[in-house]
């Protein structure tokens, strides 16, 4: 199509967004999708500022614990007694305190058990059987023996399922502290059968237990500025909302056990042998990994049976929780690992059953995690970082994490039987490395950036899974990450039913994709395709810095990311975190417009060439040899018969001259520019707005890449038309060439359309020998018969 020059001048905007196209669809969707979030976010206060930072009146409570605990290795039971100092740092007066009794989740009459819907017996999983039987037979729940004031008086208290309310003798005014103690006991659950976050594993061969103990002491519920008491019952999915404080914990275990715990061991001389002590001290002087307890020593220790007990003392500062592990079976390795300018004691504890994997990969994974995470957040603030192998996996606690991957009994794991060059046994190796990165990474979110897990799973799991992806990719090239790349989230994004990321933890459908993979992918897209690495990394680090050892809410995250980057992201949060739409953009229509210069010497020949390009119609072809009336009677000829409509006349020149005089110099220059005007129409089929990364191919073979910001959809979010001006002919346009937007349907991404081959077809066409044939050249060159 030839565009009249005057028409062109009217199009002062190069983007023909909305306009005529919009009328056909619904023009309101754009403004709605780009509306600011205001009413969806909490109103800013002097406690939580509009910038997303903690304000001058920010406060949080504090709880310090002194705990004496005995691990009963005969009866698999915990017997504990604690003294809690509760600091009311809120501006409010409190009349009662709430504690959490997480072990009550295992009572047969718990909400967790009662609120489960009935099974579909026809499709009941094998995997749930053991769980179901163990749970119904287990004598679970915590036995509260006493709740006393500092002076020893019994305190009135009420147990409501997983919550315990303690009445205060006098109201606790702002700024005051209250000291009280609780004695309790509970049975430890078999974690191999239930998938709990802590428990024991029994090893039949050597009749030993391995304990991973968590959610094991009555602990303070959080009291916050945005929620009051966070006393939602513990149902199993929504993890924990906790106060930071100092822990002094004395753990009494059989003397032949090795104990790993949150914090720093205070009495190594009392609990370690001379040999162990000197190795432990040497490990703290070096970045070289060494054994404190060797595999052989651990094996030998499995046969020990002592009736003597020992008490291991740990102290941990500024932590929100405390967990520990204990067993006769532990191998122990350790080394110092840098995190920024700090040095951290990285340690792993595992039974011989975890070898050969663990001594090779566990502690290096810890060291790698605190190195990479520190670059995107802050230096690892604690003195130790520990990975323990046992029945739980994976699960995170301050300074300590429980990670489950382990080889088979014969020492192989997964396809270790195949040859190393077939890249096969790495499956298991990567399973272990990934879970350790993830669980150690949780020290940043939510252990230090102390978000509310019970309420918002994504705030720790999503952010952590995002950094896990970065850390995995920094381990080695082409690390096989399961989450992070946009294309991996597509199947979830187009599935139904779905809930938005901003959904309470207990009500989420498709939990893993919703709370882990989708927010992690969203942040990756934000970083790579929308904000760019520099702006994103600065803002993300600022969020971590602002909320280190504080308690952020989603609004604090959303606001900080904008505040520190000057990028308006409300549309992004709205689409990715508050919505369930997906990305699918189609390249629909391409039209070429060229400029009518009105110069008769240019335009007439062009018009003639265009006409000559047309092939004669069938009638014209068939009439070609027939004599016409005018041919038979030349008298019928006149001026019009002879004149060529494409010949240039003095009148044409005069018109052009007149036009030239009416134009400014700039307009004249524009008129003479030899340009093509292409309009490309994009349809937003998925609904979620996205930037448009494009690759344009020209007739001369040159390729150009550009990105149109998501704001192109701000007036009409269903269809937009974009104008491209170029001196060259465009031969192809492709949307999302690097699969960076999570676009659901690549088949409509290109003009001209690229045929989509199914995976099945691709597999059949693949000529690679299968992995089993790759080890042997003679074999792979033989045809398969």
């Amino acid at each position, binding site marked *: 199509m030839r565009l009249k020059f005057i028409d062109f001048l009217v199009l002062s905007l190069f983007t023909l967004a909305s306009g005529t196209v919009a009328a056909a669809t619904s023009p309101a969707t754009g403004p709605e999708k780009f509306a600011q979030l205001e009413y969806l976010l909490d109103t800013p206060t002097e406690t939580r500022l509009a910038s997303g930072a903690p304000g001058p009146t920010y406060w949080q409570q504090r709880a310090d614990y002194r705990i004496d605990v005995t691990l009963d290795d005969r009866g698999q039971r915990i017997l504990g007694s604690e003294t809690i100092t509760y600091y009311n740092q809120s501006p409010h007066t409190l009349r009662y305190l709430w504690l959490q009794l997480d072990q009550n989740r295992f009572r047969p009459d718990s909400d*967790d*058990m*009662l609120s*489960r*819907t*009935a*099974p*579909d*017996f026809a*499709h*009941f*999983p*094998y*995997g*749930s*059987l053991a*769980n*179901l*039987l163990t*749970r119904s037979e287990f004598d679970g729940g915590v036995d509260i023996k006493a709740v006393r004031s500092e002076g020893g008086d019994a305190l009135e208290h009420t147990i409501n399922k997983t919550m315990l309310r303690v009445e205060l003798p006098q109201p606790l005014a702002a700024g005051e502290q209250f000291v009280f103690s609780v004695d309790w006991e509970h049975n430890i659950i078999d974690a*191999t059968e*239930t*998938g709990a976050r802590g428990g024991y594993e029994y090893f039949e061969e050597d009749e030993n237990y391995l304990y991973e103990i968590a959610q094991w002491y009555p602990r303070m519920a959080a009291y916050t500025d945005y929620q009051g008491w966070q006393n939602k019952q513990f149902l199993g999915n929504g*993890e924990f909302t906790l106060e930071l404080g100092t822990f002094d914990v004395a753990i009494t275990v059989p003397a032949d056990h090795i104990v790993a715990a949150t914090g720093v061991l205070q009495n190594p001389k009392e609990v370690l042998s001379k040999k162990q002590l000197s190795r432990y001290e040497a490990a703290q002087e070096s970045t070289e990994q060494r054994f404190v307890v060797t595999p052989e020593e651990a094996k030998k220790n499995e046969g020990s049976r002592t009736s003597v007990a020992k008490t291991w003392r740990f102290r941990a500062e500024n932590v929100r929780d405390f967990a520990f592990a204990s067993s006769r079976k532990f191998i122990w390795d350790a080394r110092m690992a840098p995190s920024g300018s700090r040095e951290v004691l990285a340690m792993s504890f595992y039974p011989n059953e975890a070898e050969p994997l663990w001594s090779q990969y566990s502690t290096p994974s810890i060291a790698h995690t605190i190195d990479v995470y520190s670059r995107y957040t802050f230096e690892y603030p604690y003195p130790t970082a520990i990975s323990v192998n046992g029945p739980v*996996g*994976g*699960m*995170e606690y301050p300074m300590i994490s429980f990670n489950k*991957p*382990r080889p088979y*009994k014969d020492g192989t794991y*997964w396809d270790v*039987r*195949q040859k190393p060059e077939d*890249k*096969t046994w*790495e499956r298991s190796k990567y*399973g272990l490395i*990934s*879970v350790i990165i993830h669980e150690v990474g949780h020290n940043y979110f939510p252990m230090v950036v102390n978000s509310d897990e019970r309420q918002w799973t994504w705030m720790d799991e999503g952010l952590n899974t995002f950094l896990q992806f970065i850390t995995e990719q920094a381990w080695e090239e082409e690390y*096989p*990450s*399961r989450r992070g790349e946009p294309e991996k989230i597509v*199947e979830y994004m*187009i*599935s*139904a039913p779905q809930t938005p990321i901003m959904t309470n933890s207990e009500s989420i459908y498709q*939990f*893993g*994709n919703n709370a*882990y993979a989708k927010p992690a992918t969203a942040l990756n897209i934000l970083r790579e395709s929308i904000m760019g690495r520099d702006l994103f990394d600065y803002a993300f680090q600022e969020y971590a810095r602002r909320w280190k050892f504080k308690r952020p809410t989603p609004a604090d995250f959303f606001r900080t990311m904008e505040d520190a980057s000057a990028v308006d992201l409300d549309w992004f949060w709205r689409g990715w975190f508050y919505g369930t739409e997906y990305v*699918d953009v189609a390249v629909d229509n391409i039209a070429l417009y060229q400029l009518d210069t009105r110069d008769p010497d240019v335009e007439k020949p062009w018009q003639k060439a265009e006409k000559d390009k047309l092939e004669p119609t069938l009638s014209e072809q068939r009439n070609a040899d027939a004599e016409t009336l005018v041919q038979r009677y030349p008298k019928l000829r006149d001026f019009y018969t002879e004149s060529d409509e494409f010949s240039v006349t003095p009148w044409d020149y005069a018109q052009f001259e007149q036009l030239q005089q009416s134009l400014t110099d700039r307009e004249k220059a524009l008129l003479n520019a030899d340009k093509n005007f292409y309009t490309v129409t994009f349809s937003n089929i998925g609904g979620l707005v996205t930037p448009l990364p494009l690759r344009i191919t020209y007739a001369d073979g040159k390729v150009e890449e550009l990105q149109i910001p998501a704001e192109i959809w701000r007036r009409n979010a269903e269809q937009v038309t974009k104008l491209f001006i170029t001196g060259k002919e465009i031969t192809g346009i492709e949307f999302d060439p690097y699969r960076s937007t999570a676009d659901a*349907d690549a088949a409509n991404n290109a003009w001209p359309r690229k045929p989509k081959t*199914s*995976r*099945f*077809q691709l*597999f*059949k066409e693949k000529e690679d020998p299968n992995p*089993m044939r790759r080890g042997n050249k003679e074999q792979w060159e033989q045809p398969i018969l």
Partner: protein
Amino acid sequence: MIGDAFPPAASRQRAGRTALIWGLWLALVAVPAWPHPWHTSFAEIDWAADGATLEVALRVLPEDLETALTWRSGEAVVLVDTPEVRTLVLAYLAEHFFLRSESGQTLHPDELVGMDLAYDASWLYFTLPAPPEQRLYLHDSLLMDVDSSQTNRAQPLWAAPADTLLFTPAQPELLLWQGH
């Protein structure tokens, strides 16, 4: 926490015992099921050139398939591409991924064309006989025996991406093909 990538090694369960244990469930009030972030599978389905066979590319978590095969066979199975493992996989697919036609026929996968086994994504490629003139329902209860939070998605390539089917333990069978 992270997805429990390694489900309880409950190899002591045997298929033969399930009938006995089914009796026990009925006596219990509720079902414990550890919600699990990882358990999903994805199938791409298209008609083969002959128009009477469906070609399926199925992505699974290798460790979950390993667990399922271990439970099924009663001994530890390592997921490698060997003739023995292929036989097990095909038998497992026959139980958990099949078609039911309008006329009441059950159509099982007939050929395991190949496997691509890797940590981040493991793919199985197989074919299913399918009478195109009939309405076809797909039963996809893959790995729901390993974990009750398993969800499976299947994308028929003749339909729009948004028409992906979602299979859950409560709804393991859905209409795949209208028939013609």
